């Protein structure tokens, strides 16, 4: 996400920390791992959808970052640089892990009558999202629903709507066409709406 906003340049403390890392300072390595593991775990967790793979990806990310310390040029924050490496490590794991048979998403998409009208009558949700999402239990519910989406759709939704990569970046990351990204994102959002609706619509309707 930071990639778009013109990331702020590294703080002086980032630069000196990286200098210590380059010098092989054990304490500096421990400080970096302790400081950033939680954030990176959150990133890889949402891309991979399970804890075990997410932890492996964090490990991959740190090792890859430590191997490429020479490439940290101070043009971005250390946190931004590590975030990007963690996204790539998670995507790499996603590509290499044994593919589960793809689940269908059709049953979560809108159903239409022969004349093209919706079969379902949609009733309003009780609260706008910015209000309902102030509650931690609702945020946890939405995360569970996102995790319930088939991999192919979850990853596109996470990369586009949460990591805020653009269509082309997402297409490159997943090795699919921009058009496939758009189709999958639209379907993923529609499926997520179906999963959220029973929880968010007003009780009386």
């Amino acid at each position, binding site marked *: 996400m930071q990639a778009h906003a013109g990331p702020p340049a590294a703080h002086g403390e980032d630069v000196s920390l990286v200098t210590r890392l380059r010098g092989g300072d054990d304490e500096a390595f421990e400080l970096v791992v302790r400081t950033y593991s939680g954030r990176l775990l959150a990133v890889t967790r949402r891309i991979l959808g399970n804890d075990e793979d997410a932890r492996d990806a964090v490990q991959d990310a740190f090792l890859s970052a430590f191997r490429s310390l020479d490439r940290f040029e101070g043009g971005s924050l250390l946190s931004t640089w590590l975030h990007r490496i963690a996204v790539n490590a998670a995507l790499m794991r996603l590509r290499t892990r044994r593919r589960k048979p793809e689940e269908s998403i059709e049953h979560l998409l809108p159903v239409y009558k022969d004349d093209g009208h919706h079969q379902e009558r949609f009733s309003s949700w009780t609260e706008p999202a*910015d209000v309902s999402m102030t509650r931690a239990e609702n945020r946890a519910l939405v995360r569970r629903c996102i995790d319930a989406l088939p991999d192919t759709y979850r990853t596109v939704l996470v990369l586009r709507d949460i990591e805020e990569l653009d269509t082309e970046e997402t297409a490159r990351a997943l090795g699919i066409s921009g058009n496939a990204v758009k189709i999958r994102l639209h379907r993923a*959002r529609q499926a997520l709406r179906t999963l959220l609706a029973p929880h968010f619509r007003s009780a009386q309707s």
Partner: protein
Amino acid sequence: MTCREFADFIMDYLAGELPADAREPFERHLSRCHNCHEYLAQYKSTVEAGRLAFQHPEEEVPADVPADLIKAVLAARK
């Protein structure tokens, strides 16, 4: 425009990428079809909820990291 066609255009509409010749019938359908009006509102809420589920300021606090993960990373570096 049918509700099915309307739904197909939602993402481009929200991204401001719907060409003018599709935008006019889209907005006409939106003003006349209460069900699609509601569907569009829910679609927008879904995108917003997805983003906030992870990016809400209270979620910025990193998750607890298992101590063995930190150990494993530091050991693997050696």
